[in-house]
């Protein structure tokens, strides 16, 4: 436990000092940290889920407080909590199902579970079935029957696999923890693979001889564009440089290295260029429950320009960026104000900055993020497919429990 505590402290420290940047990296670190918290957490016999939830919540609160601006941390914590709740639910239903299935059941829960042993296969299937029946079916599951059914055999097989290994000493405790860790591993897998998942869809959206505009730098956008390029689509990319951090320059460099036709423009030239653009593709920092987007500063301007010229405005976001909160909450719309040294050299405007002496004083504001309201967004592409902004709340309901929204 102490080593977990120290890794938590270390991570909190990094978040505080803004040493980790980018939501994917943060999400990855967070979920790995939470996995070790769960695996080191001692669980009592009764009410194990609550113990795990408390432990995760306690750590999660620290992480969120360390850098409230990085919404991915909160999202991942809520995802993990959701996984715990789900697994707990499926286990209880499985236990109930087991009681029905097996006549020769013992009196108490632990023995019962021991008794299950080999019929675990059926229990997992029952659990999956229970999960889908307990939850009202979402539009997504109705439309795409395949992914759901694909996940069921996955969980059941892996469950059976490990079950046979740990059958001897298995107890309900270990089972829940094990399942949760399994679920968290899947989440890690998902976060790591979100770029490829999103990029796979590129071919459907980018067509021959199109002109794409993007702003700032996003790994997701890079992979997305490159995936289209690999499929022999030829198109051109305009990169708005994304002042004052100029991450667009880095993106342009990468794109050229991968053989794309790239043009760098200033942020202020976006409006002038937009009439030649077929689609704007942006990587988000976070997607809010109402379908609004928090992205690099300048994004709102690009979205407005796109709307004016009826150019589709597409936002790419891995599922860890979906935030179950609404942006009316001032706590959420926090913006990080960075050092003015990105705009001005220290001492450059010293005489105006030394306020108090004269009448006027110069203030330098360097916000990191911009908020794009949902009506400006045409399409979200997440690792599960393309979605309309008005649908985001539903998608988010799949990933989070309502109990965890307020931590």
């Amino acid at each position, binding site marked *: 436990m102490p080593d977990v505590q120290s890794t938590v402290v270390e991570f909190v*420290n990094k978040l*505080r000092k803004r040493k980790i940047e980018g939501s994917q990296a943060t999400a990855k670190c967070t979920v790995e940290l939470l996995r070790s918290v769960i695996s080191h957490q001692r669980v009592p016999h009764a009410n194990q889920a609550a113990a795990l939830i408390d432990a995760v919540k306690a750590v999660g609160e620290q992480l969120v407080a360390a850098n409230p601006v990085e919404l991915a941390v909160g999202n991942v914590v809520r995802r993990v909590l959701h996984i715990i709740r789900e697994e707990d639910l499926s286990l209880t239903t499985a236990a109930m199902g087991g009681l029905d299935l097996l006549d020769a059941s013992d009196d108490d829960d632990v023995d019962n579970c021991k008794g299950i042993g080999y019929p675990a296969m059926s229990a997992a299937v029952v659990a999956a079935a229970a999960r889908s029946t307990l939850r009202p079916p979402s539009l997504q599951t109705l439309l795409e029957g395949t992914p759901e059914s694909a996940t069921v055999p996955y969980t059941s097989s892996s469950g059976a696999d490990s079950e046979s290994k740990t059958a001897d000493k298995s107890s309900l405790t270990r089972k829940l923890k094990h399942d949760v860790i399994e679920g968290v591993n899947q989440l890690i897998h998902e976060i790591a693979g979100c770029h490829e998942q999103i990029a796979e869809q590129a071919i459907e959206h980018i067509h021959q001889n199109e002109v794409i505009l993007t702003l700032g730098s996003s790994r997701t956008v890079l992979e997305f564009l490159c995936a289209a390029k690999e499929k022999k689509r030829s198109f051109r990319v305009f990169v708005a440089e994304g002042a004052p951090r100029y991450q667009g320059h880095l993106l342009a460099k990468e794109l050229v290295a991968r053989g794309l036709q790239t043009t760098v423009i200033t942020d202020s030239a976006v409006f002038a260029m937009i009439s030649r653009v077929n689609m704007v593709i942006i990587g988000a920092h976070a997607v809010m429950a109402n379908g609004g987007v928090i992205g690099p500063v300048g994004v709102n301007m690009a979205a407005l320009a796109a709307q004016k010229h009826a150019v589709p405005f597409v936002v790419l976001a891995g599922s860890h960026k979906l935030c179950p909160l609404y942006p009316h909450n001032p706590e959420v719309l926090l913006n990080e*104000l960075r050092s*003015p040294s990105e705009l001005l050299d220290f*001492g450059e405007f010293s005489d105006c900055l030394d*306020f108090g*002496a004269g009448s006027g*004083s110069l203030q330098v504001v360097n916000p990191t993020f911009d908020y794009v309201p949902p009506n400006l967004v045409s399409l979200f592409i997440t690792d599960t497919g393309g979605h309309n902004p008005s649908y985001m709340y539903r998608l988010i309901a799949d990933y989070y429990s309502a109990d965890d929204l307020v931590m």
Partner: protein
Amino acid sequence: MGAQKKPAAARVRDDSEDLTRQRLQAIVLADSFTTQFRPITLERPKVLLPLVNIPMIDYTLAWLESAGIEEVFVFCCAHSSQVIDYLEKSEWYSRPNPNLLVRTIVSPKSTSVGDALRYIYEQQTETSQIQGDFVLVSGDTVSNMPLAGLIQEHRDRKKKDEKAIMTMVIKKDSRLGIVSDQLFIAVDPLTKQLLHYEEGTARGGDVCLDKSLLDSTVLVCNDMQDCYIDICSPEVLSLFEDNFDYQHLRRHFVNGLLVDDIMGYKIFTHEIQSSFYAARIDNLRSYDMVSKNIIQRWTYPYVPDINFSGNRPLKLGRQGIYRASDAVQSRSTNIGASTVIGYGTKIGNGGKIFNSVIGNGCSIGSNVVIQGSYIWNNVTIEDGCEIRNAIVCDGVKIRAGAVLQPGVVLSFNVVVGRNFVVPAYSKVSLLQQPTTEDSDEELEYADRSGTADLLSGVNNLQLESKASELGPDRTGYIWEVCDSAHDEEWKHSVIPIPMDKLADITRAMDDDDIEDESVVPPSGELKSDTDSINTDANDDYGYFEREVEETFLMAIIKDDVDHVIRLINSRRFAYNMASADCAGAVFYSMMRLAVNTPHNSASELYRNATTIITKWKGVLGLYLKQTDEQIEVIMKFEEMCEESAELGPLFAQIVHFLYDKDVVQEDAILRWGEEKAGADESDKVYLKQCEALIQWLKEASEEEEEEDS
């Protein structure tokens, strides 16, 4: 030879492995060894003073931690127990398995940076705490620059050149020149080696460079700021140990190394990129400046709305207003731009607060005007007060209607009476001003207990009789400001520079620019052929002469020639004097000694002089190897004789004596005679005295020549 080389190469490789394995260490001096922050620092160490509601040392430690430093030694001196208490309670100690180990070193007796480093060196022999290169900063540094690359650069350089023992961080900053003393440095533009360092030259004053520097290209800058962040090799500690008279890190140590060409140690500079921030708080003005920079977020991520060291983060609103979530404020209060309001603070109706920092737990009444001020924790300000550009420490009570005029400093727990007007620039403390006049280099009051005695023991009586100073129901003494300091006061207080002064300075600067354009461009490269550098150093020479005299008189008691030579050499290096100057000064001291020894007649004086010369001619001889230097001595003596009527008549006799004792060669005397031959009639008094001698010498040499031929 080849066989010998091999093990050496192997050792080098071992060393490099050692270097990579070393922990990154830093020494933080939690005492600035100055009195700039008095009277506040009589009660609390400077590093614990709140800077935008967070103690200064937290900024330093947070920065060092994120820059990758693994172990910090906090050197405590004055108020060491307070510093240690604070650190033990802080996050730095309580954190499990921290990245940054904080240790404290306590030495209450140290009175300067030199003492501190010597103390660390002494400890070093027992504990060997410092394993390799270390970062030396003071505990009042605010920065966000990365250090890893810099340390690597230093190590690489050290590997190549054993003598590169220190890297100094400098920052381009044109504006601090107005405020603090100007810094003048000369750097080799290619290697970044520091060649000359001069602090506190007045604007437009002359700067003298050693002529040998001009053999190659030199970059001369006067728009640099010294960040007082140094990467040092362990040799630095031992150098301090060897040179027991080094006190000040820059004035003595750096200048000492620069003029000392025997050991050949080198100092390099590193200019930090303009995107990083580094500054040091050494007086109230820089306190004000750095506070404002923090509020403007130049120090990001070390800003009040980020929890970087266990502080409670504040909320940042529009226009740079930082507010604690539980601060209570009346709707009618007007809170202006760039203001910080701490936790648990209550503000009454109709006030006006801007450009100010207000600490935790303060209570501020109605209709209070606070502008450009720093109000620390738990301060009570009653209705209708007016506070402009003041520093108000913890626990102060300001009764209704009181006015603090600009530049006031109220130390801990002072009470200002109803409707009392505290005059501008006054410093008020519960402690009395120490009566002894301190040099500016003195230690902040060593121990709290001592000062407490001062308060309780010295006079409760006086407290009452003097109490009227601050109006009815008040406590505290107003410290006197000596007249000379008063003129300079505007430079160091928290008040923005008054417009008229600023205009003066800028005008002076413009004038300079015009005048100097031909001489020294503000910052440019001087080619080797430029000889326009002024070499006028009269002032320095005066000091030097006085110091040599003092040393000489002191040393004479000990009666040890070697000892005298050593002391004088150290002075010589400190002032960068030629050996001719030394000789002049030594001779001057000897003659002064002779004159000051009691005597009744001229002959007795002559006897005194001769005995002294015979005794100490070894010292003189050391500096008089060349004819030029000997002439210098004679001319010096001439000057002295003009000043002292007693010595005048003895001139020829003493010169002759010097010749007899082989201190002065005949060549020197003859050449002196030739030089003087062309001088004014009034200057020839002594030449005439010596005519006989010169004549005699000439004849003697002619005879010699004849004999030779």
